[in-house]
Structure formats: C-alpha cells, structure tokens
C-alpha cells in the first residue's frame, strides 16, 4: 500500500468547546485501561493468551472443587485456602501482567505523552497499581464466587447459605491481601526496567529466591527465628497474616503441618503494611524521576 501522501480532504477543523473532565474521571479512565490491559482486552490476540490461560485454570480448579463438594458432600478447600493453593499461578500472573502494565510503557517511551497531560504525575503509577490489584483480586475472587454459587445451590436453607457467605467474605478479604502485596511488589520491580523479560524474571526471582531464606530460617535452632521466618518472603508473609487473622479458615486439618507464628502474628501484620507502604513510596519516587526526564 502506498504511503499516505498528505492529501487532506478539507472538511475543516472543529474546535472543541464541550466539557473537559477533571482529575477523577481521567484517573478512572487510566485505571480502567489498566484493568483491561491486564487481561489483554483491547490488545492483540497474543496478549490475551496468558492471562486467560491462568483465568481458565483457576476457574477449572474452582469448578472441580465445587463439583467434588456437590458429589461427595465434603469441603475440599475453604475459600481462603483456595487463594493459598493458587499462589504459584498468582506469581506467574503478576510476572507477566505487571511488566505488561508498566515496562511496556517505559520501553515505548509513551510516558512523556502522559506526563504532558493535566493529570498529576503520581496518578499514573497509582492507577496502574490499583489496576493490577483489581486484576489479581478478580483472578482470585471470581473463582471463589463461583464456588460460593455452586455451594449455595446445593445447600439447604437460607441459614446454611448465610454461613457459607460468612466463609466467603474472609476468603475474598484474604484474596485482596494477596492482591495488594503481590501487586505492589511486582509493579515496583517491573517499573525499574523497560525490558519485559527482565521484569518478569525479576519478579519471579524475588518471589522464588526469598523462599529458601524462609526455609533456612525455619530450621534454625532458635524458636523466634522459626516463628518469624515467614516474614522473609511475600507468599509466606501473606499466609502468616492470614493465619494470624483467620486461622480456622486456613488450617482445617488439625493434624496438618502449619507454620507456627508464636506470639508474632501482629509482627506479620505490621511487616505486610510496611512492605506495601515502602513499595508504593518507591514506586512514586521512581515515577518522579521518570517524569523529569
């Protein structure tokens, strides 16, 4: 096809006198665009493969759990346990989607186009972060909702459904905790490089490399070190907070091996909050630097 040669059909230029939206709607547009990007919507078919593969797997697990429960009348996993069981998928999802959200923009140099527009420069990273949190929460929450609906249809009486709902809500909350911590760590790492492969590798590395540290700490001959071991890695940190706040929902097998937190439950909570705060602060600092370039 020949190059367009600058021939312009003269219909005339129209000035725009209509409304211009303020900061919040613009932020909303950025956020929604981020959520869509996370699931590959509005992008090429190739960008859709991975997110929907993961979505497919978690939904299949949820369907299987629901079916088994309906068939054998036995709860295979609680809602909160579902999030735990899916942790590896969540890590891979973050490793692919976080670079898609921020590294791609760094690499293509599109950021000056955002920063030369009215939105304050912190809005861009915050919108991306919320988008990733939402995507992760949907990833873990939607299957739980499916399990709940499946259970609700097989249960007798409203009381049982109500009890089920009381189980679901902490599960969704727990999923939210996974989402917030994984999104802030993952997005911060991804924002450091424009190369998506490096960003993905970095995210997996941080989640993987910290696991042996937890392992080492948990076999040290000090009980304090054992009980605090989980703090060293994001997945065990989230689990620790979960066990501290909703022990019954996460540990259903009384004979099973469960991490012992000792009296340090609140420490897990504090570390989790501090970790998220630090990641957000660093992310904002990072974009202050990027915007000034």
């Amino acid at each position, binding site marked *: 096809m020949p190059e367009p040669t600058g*021939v*312009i059909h003269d219909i005339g230029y129209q000035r*725009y006198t*209509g409304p211009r939206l303020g900061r919040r709607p613009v932020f909303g547009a*950025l956020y929604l665009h981020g959520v869509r990007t996370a699931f590959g919507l*509005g992008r*090429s078919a190739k960008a859709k493969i991975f997110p929907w593969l993961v979505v497919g797997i978690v939904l299949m697990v949820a369907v299987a759990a629901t079916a088994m429960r309906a068939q054998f009348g036995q709860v295979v996993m609680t809602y909160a346990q579902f999030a735990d069981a899916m942790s590896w998928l969540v890590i891979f999802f973050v490793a692919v989607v976080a670079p898609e959200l921020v590294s791609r923009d760094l690499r293509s140099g599109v950021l000056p186009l*955002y920063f*030369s527009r*009215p939105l304050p420069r912190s809005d861009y990273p915050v919108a991306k972060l919320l988008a990733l949190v939402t995507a992760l929460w949907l990833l873990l929450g939607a299957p739980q909702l499916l399990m709940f609906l499946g259970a609700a249809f097989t249960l007798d009486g409203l009381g049982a459904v109500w009890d089920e709902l009381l189980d679901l809500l902490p599960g969704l909350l727990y999923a939210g905790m996974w989402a917030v911590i994984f999104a802030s760590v993952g997005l911060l790492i991804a924002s450091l490089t424009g190369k998506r492969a490096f960003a993905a590798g970095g995210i997996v590395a941080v989640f993987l490399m910290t696991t042996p540290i937890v392992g080492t700490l948990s076999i040290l001959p000090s009980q304090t070190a054992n009980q605090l071991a989980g703090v060293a890695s994001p997945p065990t940190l989230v689990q620790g907070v979960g066990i501290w706040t909703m022990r019954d929902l996460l540990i259903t097998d009384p004979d099973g091996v469960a991490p012992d937190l000792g009296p340090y439950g609140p420490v897990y909570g504090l570390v989790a909050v501090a970790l998220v705060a630090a990641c957000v602060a660093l992310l904002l600092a990072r974009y202050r630097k990027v915007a000034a370039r």
Partner: protein
Amino acid sequence: MTLIATESLTKVYGGGVTALSELTVAVEPGIVGLVGANGAGKSTLIKLLLGLLTPTRGRVRVLGLDPTTDPAAVRARVGYMPEHDCLPPDLSAAELVTHLGRTSGLPRTVARERASEALRHVGLHEERHRAVGGYSTGMKQRVKLAQALVHDPDLLLLDEPTNGLDPAGRDAMLALVHRIGTEFGISVLVCSHLLGEVERICDTLVAIDGGRLLRADHIAAMTSATDVLAVEVSEGTEALADRLGALDLPVRREGRLLLVPLADEQTYDLILGAVAELDLPLHRLDQRRHRVAELFARRESSHA
C-alpha cells in the same frame, strides 16, 4: 495576548550543566520557529513550558498561565509532540489517540470522535485501525502529531516534527504544521535544528544557542531589508563590478556571482543598464531572499 513569555529564564541541571541561561523572550500567537543546534536548550525550554521541569531562576508564562505553579491548567491547553519514538507498537493509532484524548479529559465518546478526526486531519484514514508497530516513520510522526491535537489545544509544542522523514515527508509535515497554524487557529511552536525548514512556515523565529537567546523577531523583519540581487554574466564580471561600483551600488563578489543589495525597483534598472552598456552576456539576474541562516551565521561569527 502573549503566547509565551520568559524572563531571565535559567535552568541548571543537577550536574551543574546550564541548559538555559537568562533567556528573556516574548512571542505572539502564530507559528513560532525555535531553532538551535542539538543541545542548544530547545527541549529543556519545552519541558519548562510544560511544567515538567522547574526553572532554576526566572519566570515563564504560557498562554498567560504559569506552568511552574499551575502545570495542569497549562497542559490542558497545550499539545506536546515529543522528539523521540513514543508510540506503543501493539496498539492501533485509533485506540492510542482515543486513550490519550481521555487522559486529557475528553469524555469517552468525544475522545473517540476527536481521535478519528485528528487522525484524519493528519492524513491517516483506514490504516488507523492497524497496530502502530507496522507504521512507517512518516505515519508514526503523523500519529504523534494527532495525539497532540486530539484535545484541541490552543498551543502545540512540536519537538523536531520532521525528524527521520525523507524530503517529501518533511515537506508534507511542514505543510501540515503550517495548515494547523493558519487554518485551525492553533498556535504552534516548532523546534528544529534545521533553520531552512522552519523559516519556510513560521511567522516568528526564536534562535537559541548554548542556552542563550541569539535573536527573536518576526520573520519578515529578519529578511525584508536584506534581499539581494544576484547577477551572473558569462564574461566581464570584473568590468561589471567596477561599473556598478561607480554607480554607488555596494557590490559583493561571491564566486562567479555579483551580489547587489536590493534597495528599490531602480536597482534592477541600474544593473540592466550597466550590463547593456558594457554589452555583456547576462546569464542571470534574480532576487535572492537572504536566508535567515546567514543572519545568524554573521551574528555568531561577530560574537567569536
């Protein structure tokens, strides 16, 4: 209203590099050419105008607003086309420009309409639904221009819009910029290191070098008084030069050409008379618009 006004504007970067030094300039709406060599401070000035950088000293106003204290208000009325590649390859031009239009505060449907309008105005039609990654450099430049235009700004800041284009592409881009400045009613600041390009389309020219202002003036004021006639004869150049000198015309030699400043219509007659008198074979006699470049070249050499 003054389009852009700066007062002793100075920007010193962290490393002690002075990018702009005591720049004081005021330009009126229209097409403004900002020329200077690479590293002269053009991009720094643009970033100061957008409020992306804060000045070390001095003041800057864009459209009567201060970008240091109210960057959002300035950016809402300004469109910026960066110099470098800035398009995500996997999005289509239509999606990208729509999204950026929404980021500028346009409602969803308006953003979509204006995006396709803006793309049409820059000459992209059906191809706007294809991924930008497959575009030629010329098409990419057009998309960059369209995204700066989508929210109907009052001022466009174009950083090297002809970068990477072939001569035909350059002409088309310059014609487009000229059209935006004259027909769309949008003021344009065009940055370039090629003086010959911008002088063709702009009303006002601002030249900076090493972060300092060389000159800022209307293009007419820069060129009108300096038109010259170039005379070339096949033989007897010396004799003609003497003859014209005797007629009190300040003649300059430039290779085989004689350059005579064009004072008024009479100058033509005087030259033609002299040529006829000496019976010399006249090769050419034409009016040469003094290139603005020569003005700057002379100024710069006088600096040195």
